[in-house]
């Protein structure tokens, strides 16, 4: 299915329609259910009162930063094997958004941690550490791409780094089970079904879906910008060669 979009012309036609739809739908879902989550759903006293509402930002951003890294590694893999140019354009667009979401996840985690655990930060918690590692992976990826002189070299080196770094994602996923410290265990994705009540789970999932749509639109916008950039470079090169 995706290979249909590997053609840049078809991609441009598709993204032109998809961006406004995804963006509008995402904003509606995200806005409505964030309001539900922050103001409407009943307070969960077991989880420390109103502070639990931070979950509606923190948890989706944690899923998102891992998902974005998997997306980065996946498109790097596709580019490395099949050399679909769009896969590299996607990887390049995902990296800054992923770094931003990882930072958001760490920041909201710290804000949530202060009143409930009594500390902003804890160095011996495996979950915090592995998200921090994820942050450095995104930063290192962008720094490596920026340092290499040609687009082709940057794409290849970045793809190798992103694929090697993917080992960190399962480490984050299982770090809560293996080295349990202060971070709570999984309460949504687990073998015996979600432990969270549906009242909270429904807005949480829909906020995540809304953010996913918004992010998809952002990535598509960045990809379009990059394609325009490449087309401009090519046009410039043509004009210079004629002159």
């Amino acid at each position, binding site marked *: 299915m995706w290979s249909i979009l590997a053609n840049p012309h078809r991609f441009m036609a598709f993204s032109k329609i998809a961006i406004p739809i995804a963006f509008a739908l995402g904003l509606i879902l995200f806005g409505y259910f964030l309001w539900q989550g922050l103001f409407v759903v009943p307070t969960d006293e077991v989880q420390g009162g109103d502070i639990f509402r931070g979950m509606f930002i923190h948890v989706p951003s944690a899923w998102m930063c891992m998902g974005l890294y998997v997306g980065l590694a996946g498109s790097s893999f596709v580019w490395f094997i099949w050399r679909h140019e769009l896969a590299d354009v996607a990887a390049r667009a995902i990296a800054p958004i992923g770094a931003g979401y990882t930072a958001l996840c760490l920041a909201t985690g710290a804000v949530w941690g202060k009143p409930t655990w009594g500390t902003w930060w804890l160095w011996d918690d495996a979950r915090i550490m592995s998200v921090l590692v994820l942050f450095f992976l995104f930063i290192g990826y962008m720094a490596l791409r920026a340092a290499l002189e040609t687009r082709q*070299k940057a794409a290849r080196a970045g793809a*190798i*780094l992103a*694929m090697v770094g993917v*080992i*960190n994602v399962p480490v984050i996923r299982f770090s809560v089970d293996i080295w349990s410290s202060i971070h709570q265990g999984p309460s949504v994705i687990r073998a015996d079904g979600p432990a969270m009540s549906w009242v909270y789970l429904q807005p949480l999932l829909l906020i995540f879906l809304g953010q996913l749509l918004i992010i998809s639109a952002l990535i598509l916008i960045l990809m379009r910008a990059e394609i325009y950039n490449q087309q401009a470079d090519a046009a410039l090169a043509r004009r210079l060669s004629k002159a």
Partner: protein
Amino acid sequence: MTGAPILSAFNQAVSEAWASGAGLLLPLGFFAGTAVLVPFSVGSESELLARIGPGILWLALALASFVTLERIFQADLQDGALDLWVQEDASISLIAAAKTLGHWLISGLPLVLLTPLLALTLQVPPEKTLPAMLAYGLGGLTFFMWGGVAAALAASVARAGLLIALIALPFYLPTVIFGTLALEEGLGGASILFLGASTLFALGVAPAAMGAALRLAAD
């Protein structure tokens, strides 16, 4: 497929160290210098040093690997050795692994042999010395393998030192975590096994990544 280029890459890594005139002394001096700086910067109380001593040595080991790895593949790119390696029958991954191992033998292993002495000055209890050396040995090898990947990726970048450190940092962290836990638990605990597993993982995965990165640099 022949083993000759693999062997020569190994020999080259070993002899390059002597060719500069300093041999083993340069990495050793850097390692000891970094470790010795710490008592001056944080204070020299014995209890404090005993607690942070093993960690200081991990840090010094990681820094030493960054500093020595910067030019490991860059020089080969500039003098054309890399182009010849790519044309060899032997796998470039194995050549890169051999070069990194040779480099570790010169710049990494001696540091481990020096750790008992430094540990003594940093007030680390003597009974911890042997398990510590094992952990530093495994950890150092892992550092050099991942650092080698970063160095290979940045081979065509001028003044790549900081970039190598930034790229390699996420890959160093698990090793440092397991290594520190292993020093606390001793040889009976699970952490030394995790540390060994991470070393084996690096030995298995890093050469392939180095090979791919070097083929890119040679293009």
